[in-house]
């Protein structure tokens, strides 16, 4: 599981890659939190295009991001969700809570 972040004009882009499970989620949440704290973005984009597998741990990551961005009164967009991850989001009803592009 990997995470890379880029930030420009207070728009933070988080790119996730690999298998997002409980084993990987903790370090992803820590790094994402650290980046949000450092950049105080007005908008956060999470790019899931290279996530090869995701279970409900991915939901926890996105809900954490949502809470942090609500605190900052910023926007959150989830991009390039692979089909397998989308099935998990659909089963969990996450489309009602988050904005997907």
């Amino acid at each position, binding site marked *: 599981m990997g995470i890379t972040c880029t930030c420009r004009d207070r728009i933070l882009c988080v790119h996730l890659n690999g298998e997002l*499970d409980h*084993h990987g989620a903790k370090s992803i949440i820590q790094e994402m939190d650290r980046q949000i704290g450092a950049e105080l973005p007005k908008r956060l984009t999470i790019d899931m295009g290279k996530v090869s*597998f995701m*279970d409900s*741990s991915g*939901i*926890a990551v996105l809900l954490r991001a949502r809470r942090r961005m609500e605190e900052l009164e910023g926007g959150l967009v989830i991009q390039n969700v692979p089909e397998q991850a989308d099935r998990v989001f659909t*089963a*969990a009803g996450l489309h009602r809570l988050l904005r997907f592009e």
Partner: protein
Amino acid sequence: MRPENSATVEFVSRSVNEGFARTAAACFAAQLDPTLDEINDIKTAVSEAVTNCIVHAYPKELGKIRMKLHRYPNDLLEIIIQDWGVGIADVEQARTPLFTTGTEERAGMGFTIMESFMDSVRVRSTLGKGTTVKLRRHISRRISGARG
């Protein structure tokens, strides 16, 4: 009903074994010629069940997790995931969406995902003795012809 084929794997409750368990289950399921969606559903459900063992059954120390895989006639796959951990006080509550006793990297959606992706999910648990989760899924037959 006797299984046509069976396999058992045992591993300790280290989180790195979540990936091992779902991949092992997918390898066993491959003999039923599943679609990619079916394989992904099986991997996701197994990942949830094994993560529950790692996070909840053995919160303080490492313990043993056993995964039994059975292939039954009529393309039925059964996966039994057993632990000897703390057990679940209230199984109905544990199955409720968003309920979790875990930390922030859990969303409380494990059983909801298992129920969505499997045909049936049975949970038996005894406090102090452990928990057994039985997952069943029929694999659709795509092409005529025998399966090995």
